[in-house]
């Protein structure tokens, strides 16, 4: 089985937000929920860099560790998913997540945020694959169709890579060798406990 990961090449990302709208398009994510977003550092200053952020599908995911109802599970492809029927909207995962991935449809006190929503790595949820029931709760299931997440597939400069960790790491290494520089695989140490060295 593959070990699915995301990698954002910050030297390529131009903050065009294709990943964001591709995600909205694929899953019809409503206004106010952002499974993926682009964060820009030093906006407007020399050294400005952007990274596209979503759930990184961590090894030993912190969200799963803190979830009081154990709604998270990890698939054979190492994708971290959750069960919205179990989720109580407590918001613990949003505090645990180092990437700000969990999203909630409502803002209110005392556990009434609604069911948590986040990136599914385009692979749905616990319902049977590619069903209307799955689509309504989690969005489409591209992995089940043999396709990769649409955000990475549509990335304008091919900055955002998705796929088996070893393969995308190799693509990134080749790039760094070709161009002679690279600011590293952003978030990999946090998410996967490893860095990408060249």
């Amino acid at each position, binding site marked *: 089985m593959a070990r699915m990961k995301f990698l954002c090449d910050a030297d390529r990302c131009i903050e065009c937000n294709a990943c964001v709208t591709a995600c909205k398009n694929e899953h019809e994510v409503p206004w*106010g929920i952002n499974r993926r977003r682009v964060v820009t550092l030093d906006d407007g200053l020399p050294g400005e860099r952007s990274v596209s952020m979503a759930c990184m599908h961590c090894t030993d995911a912190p969200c799963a560790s803190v979830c009081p109802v154990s709604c998270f599970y990890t698939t054979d492809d190492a994708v971290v998913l959750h069960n919205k029927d179990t989720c109580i909207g407590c918001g613990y995962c949003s505090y645990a997540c180092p990437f700000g991935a969990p999203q909630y449809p409502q803002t209110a006190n005392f556990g009434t945020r609604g069911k948590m929503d986040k990136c599914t790595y385009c692979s749905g949820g616990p319902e049977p694959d590619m069903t209307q029931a799955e689509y309504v709760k989690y969005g489409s299931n591209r992995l089940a169709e043999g396709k990769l997440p649409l955000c990475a597939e549509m990335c304008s400069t091919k900055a955002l890579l998705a796929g088996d960790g070893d393969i995308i790491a190799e693509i990134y290494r080749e790039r760094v060798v070709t161009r002679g520089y690279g600011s590293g695989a952003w978030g990999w140490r946090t998410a996967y406990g490893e860095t990408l060295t060249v």
Partner: protein
Amino acid sequence: MLIKRKARDTAATGRLSQIAATLSARPLDRRSFLGAAGLGVGGLAAIGTMGVGMTRRVEAQGFDDPSQPIEVRTNICTHCSVGCTVKAEVQNGVWVGQEPGYNSPINRGTHCAKGASVREVVHGARRIKYPMKKVGGEWQRISWEQAMDEIAEKMTEIRGRSGADSVYMLGSAKFSNEGAYLFRKFAAFWGTNNVDHQARICHSTTVAGVANTWGYGAQTNSYNDIRNAKTVIVMGSNAAEAHPVSMQHILEGKETQRANVIVIDPRFTRTAAHATEFIRFRPGTDIAVIHGMLWHIFENGWEDRDYIAQRVYGMDQVREVVRAYPPDVVENITGIPGDTLKRVAETFAKERPSTFIWCMGGTQHTVGTANVRAYNILLLATGNVGGEGSGANIFRGHCNVQGATDFGLDMGNLPLYYGLGAGAWQHWSRVWDVPYDYFVSRFDAVPAKGGREARTPTQNMEVPGITSTRWFDAVTIDAEDIDQQDNIKAMIVFGHGGNTVPRMQDAQRGMDALDLLVVADPHPTTFAALHSRTDNTYLLPICTQFETSGSRTASNRSIQWGERVVEPIFESDSDYSVIHALSTRLGFADEMFKNFDMVQGKFGMEPTPESIMQEINRGGWSTGYTGQSPERLKAHIANQQHFDLITLRAGPDAPEEVRGDYYGLPWPCWGTPELRHPGTHILYNTNLAPMDGGGAFRPRFGLEYEGETLLAEGSWPLGSEIEDGYPEFTYALLEQLGWDTDLTPAELAVIRDIGASDPEKIATVSWSTDLSGGIQRVALQHGCVPFGNGKARAVAWNLPDPVPVHREPIYTNRPELVSNYPTNDDRRQQRMPNIGKVVQQDVVDRNVSTDFPLILTSGRLVEYEGGGEETRSNPWLAELQQDMFVEVNPADATARGIVDGGWVWVTGPEGGSKARVKAMITERVAAGVAFMPFHFAGWFQGEDQRGNYPAGTDPIVLGESVNVITTYGYDPVTGMHEGKVTLCQIAAA
């Protein structure tokens, strides 16, 4: 911190702004919602249709049921000119999903935010759903029948009263090629040259500048070819936001070639963030920057002498002009310090191939054409045109602005740059199979007035019309001052925003004064909302290019055929159908449509785009639009995987139907489709034979000037049988060379027919008027370029500045420079006076720059496009950019007590103009410079105009338009507006 937040909350008045305000604790960057996403989203549930229950509405249109068959249809993104392939998954007639089109050599599956969200546009909750008209100030639903009948009747009535020229036909860069051509033909049959489209306001100066230099007004190379460049200068282009997918090629090229990517721009753009060097300069001083570089190039002998000797006319005169731009002078004008330009000039001249990219930062100026000419001269001086990795990589704006330009949605041209002369009208009369005299009969006679002579219809049909930048002046100006029978009384607006040209106060007055306003568009646009009209205003729902089929020409001249994804939604219909319905009622449909295959459309008969393209193929000799038959174009889309990423050429393994072709048969694609010319990837490339896509500079300005030859000397395309320069091919030239015997009898018969069997006329039949294609075929057979082999012109003696010189912007922040560098003299152009010099002198005399000390410039955002009505109606995009803003440097903000994210009034120097927007404090702009994006509308000088839109069609996001503030100023050649330099003042609201 808390005070700031509170202040913001109370200041917000608009519905969305309130929502946004609850969202943004502190805007970290311009996407203010990001800082607090996931915390304050509750308010967004207030937005009507977008319920937030579980992830989405149960009736989600994005679910593709695996039990039902899915069909994948291929079309092209309808936003920018890159031409990204869109793969649409269709189930039961509904577009349910978008997939990456990996096989496209142009985008390889990728998109930007706009391309990745195009599916929304065919669900489009906020589109115009049915024809409407305003009755007593209220929008009322009507039928297509009624709309067409009433519009045609009113047009005819206005024509009778004020003449054909009083109806203005504003077309669109969003048309397909076939739609654009049809619209131009429609204007010809109606009898006016008052027809234009968005190219006027994006690259008209490019087309004029480039065509006057080396022959054709288009990008010389391609996005893909930038991968070959060793040095890239990007000046006045923010590709990362305006053409994001082009950055794939630029950044990969930068990596593989270790290329120098130098961004020269007043603003530290997102493109600059990825450059190897960024150089800031004062807006509006491009020519001084370029001459500053040329000064070093000539001083150090870095120019390409052989190239200049063989292929360039007049470089010595440039040398003389450039002497006046030594480093200290250039630094004083531009603000670029020290020897920065020396370093850049040396890199550009020596680390070749070098390419120069520009966009509207260069073109939208009173010196737009001269800017373009300066860029061209830099390329010519360093020998950087006509080869791989070099060239003028002009990034056009809209998805088909190149095609719409090619097909003459232009007040100065019939389709394909034939001009408006008698020869041009005769050529198209032959192609259309309509007597020339018919067109004469359709045009107005113009009476003598204002001291100007009268014009007969024959003369009037050869006089360029009014530009889209000044249609409102043509409505309100004193009738004595307008160079046609009467003022503009009616605007027929197909696919064109009303907020993308300066002086919106005047545009509003113009809209109010019209007798008839027709807006044909998927969205209502500013034309429907800005004014206070109560009657005689129509909205026609036009479908998008995803709901019809046809071809579009990308910036690199590649033509791509898009197939219909879904049927037109609601009651919308295609451009083809609506133009036909109008023509029918105006009485000329039978003649105009007689060459087309007519089929039953949604509400009536319509021509097939295939048959329109075939007519184009029969007439488009001047530009090589003749080889691209619909069959060939469809074969290219179907076989995308066979085209090379860098050369765009299909290899030997490709299927026979596309083998050896360049992707999309980029024009010129000479001869008939049967000739199988591969198209031209790189223009003016002497390294290839013309039959292989090679070429030379086009000698279109005579054979010599002031005793010096204008033909190439010692340079010719590979394999040419004439090993020197030569003029364009005519029948006479073929005879002279003894090549006339190569013509087939059929070809000869056509040529004789065009020459009306008169030997003198036959002799002048040329490669561009020979409808048989024989002259082109024979020229190519002998390795020659049909249009000749000439020199590019460093000196264009027919332009106001034959060699560009620096001229201060009309609204300059350096009035002391005006005496040395005044704007162009006042003149009459495009049927109206241009009084730029009077205005500039007034600006200096009144010390306008004291009260309005900040330079205001404008540009694009990645999420929105053009006037923005379509993209601001798309929730996936609108969510990302909810507020109009102005970028202010921290120094200017501090001096004015402006806080980040706070409301400010931006005021302009004309008509007490003002705009209420949010402040974005950033060093992206230099001190003394402010920037505003141009995609917003729907607020006007503090007034929320949401209620002016028909119910349910108002875009989600509204905002002030920058063009409320922008000011007078027009290029003397093309009438391009000054959109990039004016003055303003900013104060906290």
